[in-house]
């Protein structure tokens, strides 16, 4: 699974411009699914199975898009100003690198500020593509780039940009691969535009109208020095989300996930996230409502170019997800 993860985290695909990552995911899932479609916003939807007696229509969602930047202006000396796509933290930018969809690459530079102690804002930064004039620039207003940082395999821990949420994408692919016959109709939704407001999941959930929905996304951890206080930590198993800023998980879904994990002896943690949301919110609010929850992968340094996950947590997540959707679901 590590080579799959490495392959997909590297592909640039900021919100709204997921074509390259969609192509890679498509080539993985096409041989495994009963039906694969792409909808109006670019969501890739792979269906496996049909509802049989005792079965349910289940939607699983992991988002293909990552945060990135878009060029707003190229000045006469060839420096490009930019705006954010999704939640880009200004403090993670200076000195960073970006890779455009057209292959061009650049460095993030910063203006010299009067006050050296405050964090510069994105408006005080620019992209340096190594050219000297506007006409030599390989990029124009509207061009889109992802952050660039190589994948590192530290053994138990994996590091890359876009673990949020390519790790979820990888987990869905592996779950689809490992899925035994099931009475459920399972929609593996590789969603788009999550980082700008769970837009893809909104329309995908409307189309699918599932009986139950689960997002698979990263969550933060509380195990770094003087960090946010949170019980979730790397290496203690995938997390079962109870609440985040966008959603209260359906308690019946939480119970079902806990009971399934315990029966299969899969380690898990309970998760409460103060800030941040996932596709699960969009699924929950669809049409007449959908019981929804989220299986979270603990991740350090979220929305930085060096997001870190625990490989054991990832493998347990695949195992748990397969257990959850491969047999009749009873919500109590």
């Amino acid at each position, binding site marked *: 699974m590590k080579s799959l993860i490495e392959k997909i985290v590297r592909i640039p695909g900021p*919100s*709204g*411009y*997921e*074509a*390259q990552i*969609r*192509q890679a995911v498509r080539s993985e899932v096409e041989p495994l699914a009963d039906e694969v479609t*792409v*909808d*109006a*916003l*670019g*969501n890739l939807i792979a269906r496996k199975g049909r509802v049989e007696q005792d079965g349910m229509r289940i939607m699983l969602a992991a988002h293909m898009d990552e945060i990135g930047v*878009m*060029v*707003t*202006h190229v*000045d*006469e000396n060839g420096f490009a*100003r930019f*705006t*954010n*796509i999704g939640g880009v933290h200004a403090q993670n930018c200076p000195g960073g690198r970006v890779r455009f969809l057209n292959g061009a690459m650049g460095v993030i530079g910063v203006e010299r500020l009067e006050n050296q102690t405050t964090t510069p804002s994105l*408006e005080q930064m620019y992209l340096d593509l190594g050219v000297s004039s506007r006409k030599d620039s390989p990029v124009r*207003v*509207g061009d889109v780039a992802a952050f660039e940082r190589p994948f590192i395999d530290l053994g138990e821990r994996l590091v890359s940009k876009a673990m949020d949420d390519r790790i979820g994408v990888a987990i869905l692919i592996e779950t689809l691969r490992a899925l035994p016959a099931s009475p459920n109709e399972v929609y593996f939704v590789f969603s788009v*535009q999550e980082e*700008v407001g769970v*837009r*893809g999941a*909104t*329309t*995908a959930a*409307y*189309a699918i109208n599932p009986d139950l929905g689960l997002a698979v996304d990263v969550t933060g951890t509380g195990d770094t020095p003087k960090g946010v206080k949170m019980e979730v930590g790397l290496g203690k198993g995938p997390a079962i989300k109870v609440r985040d800023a966008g959603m209260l998980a359906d308690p019946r879904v939480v119970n079902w996930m806990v009971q399934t994990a315990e029966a299969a002896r899969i380690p898990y943690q309970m998760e409460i996230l103060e800030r941040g949301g996932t596709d699960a919110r969009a699924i929950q609010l669809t049409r007449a409502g959908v019981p929804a929850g989220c299986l979270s992968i603990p991740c350090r340094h979220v929305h930085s170019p060096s997001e870190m996950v625990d490989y054991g947590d990832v493998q347990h997540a695949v195992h748990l997800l397969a257990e959850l959707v491969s047999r009749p679901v009873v919500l109590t």
Partner: protein
Amino acid sequence: MTTIHDSPKTRPPRITAEQLRLLENLTNACAVSGDENEVRKIVLQEIKPFADEVYIDHLGNVLVKRLGKGEDRLRVMLAAHMDEVGFMLTFNEDKGDGIFRFDIVGGVSTSHLAGQPLWIGREHVPGVIGAKPVHLTTGDEQGTPLSIESLRIDVGPGNSGKVKIGDRAAFATRFSRVGPSLRAKALDDRLGVATLIELVKHAPQNIDLLAAFTVQEEVGLRGAKVAAYSLDPQIAIALDSTPANDLPAWDGSENERYNTRLGSGPAIYLADSATLSDPRLVRHLVETAEAQGIPYQFRQPGGGGTDAGAMHKQRQGIPSISVSVPGRYLHTPVSIARLSDWKNTLALLHSALIRLTPAILQVERDAP
């Protein structure tokens, strides 16, 4: 290049004295979000003779259908919002003195309030947002922004009975033309409304044109959400106005955050805070502009939002884009736009609609 039958219905729309009069009526009308009556009346009067179907929905949107001819017609929704930013009277200070507290409706610029005349309610009762005389202010005070809490609307002593709490108030600006420019309040989005009225009157035959004159865009894209759900189009285009911040920098340096520039033509959106435009529609508009020799610009990515933000997320997802006429000083008492930009926006949209075929949706949104 498609052949276009030269009939009255497909002759391209033009901006003449008649359309300028329409814009004047539209901008002089007051329609603060939630109370779009005055503009709705004008819209209905203009389009009723041309519509195959027209109705007002439960939020007050005017929804219009002009059906085309032939097989496999695309259902294309165009939205322009009838509402403007303004104020609402919230509390009568009760001294009979004509003084009311107020709140803003939509993103009114709060640095443009003190010292402005207003029209209040259906009768356009005159009022003012006063300001303390400079003689009575301290230096410190002059350096502090005026909060809405500290300001009041004044309709004059003894006139409290002419207005009531809940009444809306708009800037008291009358439309005028100055050289190449249009000067009025609410160019955002009466320019869009006027443009859409012309497109309805000159609806091309190759599509079903679903026009939505929406309400409450300025307070959360509310009208567009339900309009898109009802109309269920295959493509959605928002017609709006967008800021041109193209003034010179204090030190003569390059203005890198101009958003759009007056005189550079209709602004095609790539991305704002609410929508990542469908690349197929961006391509179609650019190709149309270049083929027809119509000047155009890209609105700088980031910030803001239009009705497209609500439309594209309806039902199973609707490929969407926004096209705006640039305007200076939007959301302030007096805005300025160029007549040429308006003409080119109308021309671009009309040509783009005529050149639309179902083939546009047969490729994926952003095929690599």
